[in-house]
């Protein structure tokens, strides 16, 4: 009788402990999964507070060319980072406009940088030829770089100021309004 009385809490502990540990491990895993995908929220909330978060590092192979291009290569310029794919219908619609922007930006210390995401490189090159794209294009084959910018759909466009900070994001197709209200003020800023 006394054996039962002493060992009961100890036995219960042996059952409860693994359950608590397993639950804790699963919750930890869940939290990691949620936080790992939190780039979008952190960038957007910083912009909403009026801050300009530093743009994530971006180093990707040139589409159809040799070598890599990095965002740091364009430090001192206003960079319009456009995440696109040849299979994305709205990207087809906005590409001619981005090409017009490129002609305007070039003379004012800026550039469009197209990031082709989750795409077949030959399809992307055919797309670029078809629309006469003259701005630099890089290839993010598995979408890892896009993820760091919190990109969840295509197209999305990020305006990076001359100091390499994110100044604006359009989560969807851009229009002329983005150029006027977001890019013009950045182009006026000193280097």
């Amino acid at each position: 009788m006394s054996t039962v009385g002493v060992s009961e809490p100890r036995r219960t502990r042996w059952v409860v402990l693994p359950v608590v540990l397993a639950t804790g491990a699963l919750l930890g895993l869940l939290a990691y999964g949620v936080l790992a995908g939190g780039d979008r929220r952190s960038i957007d909330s910083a912009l909403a507070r009026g801050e300009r978060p530093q743009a994530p590092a971006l180093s990707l192979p040139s589409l159809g060319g040799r070598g890599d291009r990095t965002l740091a290569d364009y430090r001192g310029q206003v960079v319009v980072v456009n995440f696109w794919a040849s299979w994305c219908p709205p990207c087809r619609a906005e590409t001619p406009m981005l090409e017009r922007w490129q002609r305007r930006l070039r003379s004012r210390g800026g550039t469009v940088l197209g990031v082709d995401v989750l795409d077949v490189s030959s399809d992307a090159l055919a797309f670029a030829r078809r629309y006469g794209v003259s701005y630099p294009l890089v290839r993010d084959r598995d979408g890892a770089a896009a993820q760091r910018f919190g990109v969840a759909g295509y197209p999305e466009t990020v305006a990076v100021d001359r100091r390499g900070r994110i100044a604006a994001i359009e989560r969807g197709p851009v229009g002329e309004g983005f150029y006027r209200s977001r890019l013009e003020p950045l182009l006026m800023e000193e280097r």
Partner: protein
Amino acid sequence: MRRVAGVVAALVLLWAPAAAFADCPRTTVADLEDEVMCQVCGVPLGLAGDAPQAERERAFIARQVGRCLGKREIERSLVAQFGPSVLADPPHEGFALSAYLVPALAVLGAAALLIGWLGMSRRRGRESDPSAPTLSASERERVDAALERWSTGRSL
């Protein structure tokens, strides 16, 4: 003679494409649909419907099938285009490793808990069964004697 040569030439012409087709590894887009992800949709191609990226991947696979590539070769070319995450089978590294570890640990944990619980309830049943009759010393001796007789083959 000319007729025989014509027949031979026709046979050769017929045989050559057939032989080429026989050498061609036969796989289909449908065969790969469950093993390849539409990364934008987050589901295998088979479940992605007519999502634009899924359609583009199917077209790419169809081109590779047309080039007579085998299933593994096509998977390799898909990885070259889209990275390892294009395969439905998660990579065996990093956070994706949890896709294998969590179910395995859950099964092991559940088995350990079940074994522990069974053992505990059995012990508890033995030790604290209130319906179990308590024997006096004389009754215990009689039961022991009866068991002894029974085990040596004598009738009770």
